[in-house]
Structures are given as structure tokens and as C-alpha cells.
């Protein structure tokens, strides 16, 4: 359907109304050099039939590739009902629920979401989401610094996603905060405890603890949490929500539990779509709730005693506190969160556990299979979730290009971010992969290396 806001007659009428002889005359005040004139690079319009044909031809060029890339965005099966429900107009078009009396449905979904996330992470409270995992990590760092009061130093392992570290650095650096990188152990790919110990006794606001880390390796979270608390620093858990179905919840890490848990919610019902949109989740202990950015939905009763839902603890949000707000990027990702809530409700606790276990098992099986190829071995030893790093006998980019020609997206090339690892490839096989898929991967890798 064409979208033409004003007909020629409308425009003539409006020009006559304000006394301008023509559109050009109306804009005469703008110097000619600044006017765009005709948009010569933009072709003439096409009709619906033509554009449908053009776009389906282009879509057909996207060959159906078998995807083994993770590295922060994960392919999981999404039950068909999820997006069927999410795209209902009531959810799809809803705006920020400032007006509680007109937004009970949206508010209830957010409340249910918070309940699920608090339960998954083992924390006291959850906010209604942030933009994505990377900005969520930055907010957690700022939150830790605010609550610590004396230190602006936060320790961040090199095993945290390099993209997350870069985003966090961009957001927190100009507020006078220092992110200090902790190297990983070459054998296990997890935090080098000796290197960490060098910071013992220094004034540290927080330690970021990834679980699993970017290499898919499982960190010694209890030990790291207790270490942070012994330094009077907060423990920030950076977690994969799918993995939490199997692993210990951050609230139970160490003697006292992590203080803040953040991560990217994409694995919970959001499809892979050219990098977005994702959503970030953030949960924390009760004592930190007033340092937490973003909004929280609460359950309450109205004047007649009937239950209802409303935005709460919002006095420090930007629409009230403006420049002094806890954060000025505290929008939530309402639609993605709605998908996550429906996804979690549909798959349930057992379903999520099966998704996590199948993803772990598939990746483990793939690692064993490809280790049979001459020159291929796992870079790190130790437990992993659903990603592993493979060391290849040849440069990774050429291998990936060759595998792609065979219909396989072979993984994420680590050489740019971790040159010290040599020809290192990060591979992920979720529950979506069959035995035949794993075999296809192994064959494609073998051909790429030894053709």
C-alpha cells in the first residue's frame, strides 16, 4: 500500500493558506547549496508485484547455511507459538507502560519476566531489561562503582567477550573508571588465579565473572566470588541464561552469592537476525536495588484492594531525575522480553534444561569428532558449556571460506582478538544440530584442511 501523506491538491491548498506560491518558494530561505535537489541515486518506485519479485529473488541468494557460530548470538529452536503471540497488536504496538491503568497486560508480562529471571539467576530482584548483554555489563560495572564509593577499578577477565569489553570500556571510561584486564590460563582458558591474586589488597570495586566465558569454558565461580568478597569488591556474574538451566545460579556462588547478574537474553526466544535486536537482563541482591538502572514492575493493590501491576522504584529514572538519573540508557526491550517470557513459559524449567544439555552434548560430540582430523585439537582443557575453541593447522579465514562453500558456517575466528592463540576457531553446536549436521561439519572441515 503506498504511503502518500499529501495529495497535490492538499499541497496546493496548504500553500495557498500560508501565501506561498510554490514549494520551492517556501524553502527559498534555505541556501541552494544546502538543498538536496533531486535524489538522483534513488530509483523510481516499483509496484508491489515488482518489489515482491525483487526481494524474493534476493532472499533466494541467501543459501541455507548450517550455522555453527555462537560467540554471543545463539541459534536455538523457538516454538512457533512464541512469535505468534508476541506479534499480536496488543504487545507489538504497546508503548512504555507509564500509564498503569492502560497497560496492565504489558506490566504483567514484565512482572512475570522479572520473576522468571530472578528465579533463573537466584537473585532477589530483576529489572525489566536493558538493551543487550554488553551494555548490561557496562551498567553493572557503573552500579558496582556507585555502590562501592571509594574505588573506580573493576577487574575484567580477558575471557570476557572482546566485544563486551569494548562496549563496557566505551561506556564507563569517560566517567573515570578503570577496567583492568586479568589474563587467562593458557591451559584451561579460564581466569589465571595467580594473575588475579596480584590485585589482592588493592582497592577494587568489582570483579566480573563470566560463566561460561567467551571460549565456552566454565570458570571456578565459587572461588572467584569468594575472592571478590574478600577484597570488599562486588562479584558481577556475566552469564548465559540457557546455561543457567544446568549450572549453579549466581545467587548461590561462593559463600555469599554474586551481587549482580547480567547477560544477554537473546538465547531465550529471539532469532538470529543480522545481529539484533537482543535484550540485556540484569538482576541483583535486594541491597543494591536502588543502584540498579532501568525500571522495575511491582505487584500491588488498587484502592479497592484488587491486585494490579505498576512501574515502581522509578524515582531515579531519567524521566524524573533527568541528568542525575541512575542511567540515561535505561530503556528496556519490551518486545524481546515478551518473547523471552513466552519462550520460558512454553519450554519450562525441564525444557530449558533439555535445550542446555543437548547443546552441551552436541558441542562435546563435535569436539570429539573433529579431533579425529589430523592437526585439529582443542585449545583448552577443562569443562565447557556449548562452545569450544579448536586449534587448526591452517589460518582460520581460508578454512572458513572453504567450509562456507560447502554450506557450513564453521565458527568464529578468534585470531583478531586473541592472536596469541594462533589459528583458533570458536565453535558452537546447539540443540538445533542433528548427528548428520555434526557429520557434515566434520566432513567440511576435513575437506577445507586436507583437500
Amino acid at each position, binding site marked *: 500500500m503506498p504511503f502518500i501523506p499529501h495529495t497535490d491538491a492538499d499541497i496546493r491548498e496548504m500553500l495557498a493558506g500560508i501565501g506561498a506560491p510554490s514549494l520551492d518558494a517556501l524553502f527559498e530561505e534555505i541556501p541552494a547549496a544546502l538543498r538536496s535537489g533531486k535524489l538522483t541515486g534513488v530509483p523510481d518506485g516499483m509496484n508491489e508485484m515488482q518489489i515482491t519479485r525483487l526481494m524474493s529473488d534476493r532472499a533466494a541468494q541467501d543459501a541455507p547455511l548450517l550455522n555453527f557460530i555462537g560467540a554471543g548470538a545463539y541459534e536455538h529452536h523457538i516454538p512457533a507459538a512464541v512469535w505468534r503471540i508476541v506479534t499480536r497488536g496488543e504487545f507489538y504496538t504497546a508503548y512504555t507502560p507509564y500509564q498503569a491503568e492502560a497497560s496492565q497486560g504489558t506490566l504483567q508480562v514484565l512482572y512475570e519476566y522479572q520473576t522468571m529471571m530472578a528465579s533463573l539467576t537466584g537473585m532477589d530482584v530483576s529489572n525489566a531489561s536493558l538493551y543487550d548483554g554488553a551494555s548490561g555489563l557496562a551498567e553493572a560495572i557503573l552500579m558496582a562503582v556507585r555502590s562501592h*564509593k571509594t574505588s573506580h577499578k573493576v577487574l575484567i577477565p580477558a575471557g570476557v567477550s572482546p566485544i563486551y569489553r569494548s562496549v563496557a570500556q566505551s561506556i564507563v571510561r569517560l566517567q573515570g573508571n578503570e577496567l583492568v584486564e586479568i589474563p587467562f590460563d593458557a591451559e584451561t582458558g579460564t581466569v589465571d588465579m595467580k594473575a588475579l591474586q596480584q590485585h589482592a589488597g588493592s582497592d577494587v570495586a568489582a570483579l566480573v565473572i563470566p560463566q561460561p566465558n567467551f571460549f565456552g569454558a566454565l570458570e571456578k565461580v565459587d572461588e572467584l566470588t569468594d575472592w571478590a568478597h574478600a577484597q570488599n569488591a562486588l562479584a558481577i556474574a556475566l552469564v548465559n541464561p540457557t546455561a543457567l538451566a544446568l549450572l549453579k545460579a549466581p545467587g548461590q556462588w561462593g559463600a555469599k552469592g554474586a551481587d549482580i547478574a547480567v547477560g544477554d537474553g537473546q538465547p531465550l526466544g529471539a532469532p538470529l537476525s543480522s545481529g539484533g535486536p537482543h535484550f540485556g537482563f540484569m538482576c541483583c541482591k535486594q541491597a543494591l536495588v*536502588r543502584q540498579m538502572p532501568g525500571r522495575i514492575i511491582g505487584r500491588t493493590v488498587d484502592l479497592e484492594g484488587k491486585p494490579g501491576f505498576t512501574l515502581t522504584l522509578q*524515582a*531515579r529514572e531519567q524521566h*524524573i*531525575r533527568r541528568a*542525575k538519573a541512575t542511567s540515561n540508557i535505561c530503556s528496556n526491550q519490551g518486545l524481546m522480553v515478551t518473547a523471552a517470557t513466552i519462550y520460558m513459559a512454553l519450554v519450562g524449567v525441564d525444557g530449558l534444561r533439555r535445550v542446555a544439555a543437548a547443546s552441551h552434548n552436541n558441542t562435546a560430540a563435535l569436539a570429539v569428532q573433529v579431533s579425529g582430523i589430523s592437526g585439529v585439537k582443542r585449545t583448552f582443557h577443562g569443562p565447557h558449556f556449548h562452545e569450544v575453541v579448536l586449534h587448526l593447522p591452517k589460518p582460520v579465514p581460508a578454512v572458513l571460506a572453504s567450509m562456507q562453500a560447502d554450506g557450513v558456517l564453521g565458527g568464529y575466528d578468534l585470531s583478531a582478538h586473541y592472536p596469541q592463540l594462533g589459528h583458533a576457531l570458536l565453535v558452537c553446536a546447539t540443540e538445533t544440530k542433528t548427528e548428520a549436521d555434526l557429520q557434515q561439519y566434520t566432513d567440511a572441515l576435513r575437506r577445507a584442511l586436507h583437500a
Partner: protein
Amino acid sequence: MSNPANLKYTPTHEWVRTEADGSITVGITQHAQELLGDMVFVECPDAGRKVRAGEECAVVESVKAAADVYAPVAGTVTGGNGELDGAPQKLNEDPYGAWIFKMKPDNAADLNSLLDAAAYQAHVDSEAH
């Protein structure tokens, strides 16, 4: 409720009581609590913190807004009122009894620049117009 004559005031709606030992006790005025409405949380400064005159020192959060409480003069905070933890409504019920923090001024003479009750009332009246 009128503003007690034995207290000093700031244009930013803090009241200040000078103690026998030269330290001062700070709270927010009747007018301030009335504007903010029902208090839900008070964040007191830690003892030992050095503050400049007019520096944000505490935060009072009501159902409507979160507002800063400023240091009336330069000095060192000696403590916050722990009783407000879990009982922020005391600021509404008894604004001139429920203090927020105590501090030691760097320079006692700075206190002379604060408003007396009449001048503060005139300031409140002028803000109303």
C-alpha cells in the same frame, strides 16, 4: 508548622542546627517534605566524607521524585541517621526532629551566611510566585 527560630536554613530547603560542640545537624524543612510527598528511602552520607558547601550529600526519595540534599557549608560528615533506614516516613512526620546527617564545618564563620527562619520563609514565599 512554622520554621523553628533556633535553626538556620538554606535556599535549597535544608535546616541546620548548631550543636554545643560546634558540629551541625542537617535535615530537610517542613516545606521540602511537603513538596516531595511520602518518603520511601533516604540515602545518608558516610562518616568521614569531605564535602564542599552546596555539594550533593544525601538523597531523599519519595513516591514522586528523588532529590539531593546539599551540604550547607564545607566540612566533614560525621555520620548519617541510621534510624531513617526502614523508617523514611519520619521525615514526613517530624521534619525538624528527623535529621539526615551531622557534620563538622571547616569554618564556623561559614554558618553566618545561612538564612534565619524569617529570611527562609520569605525565600519560600518568593518561590511560590
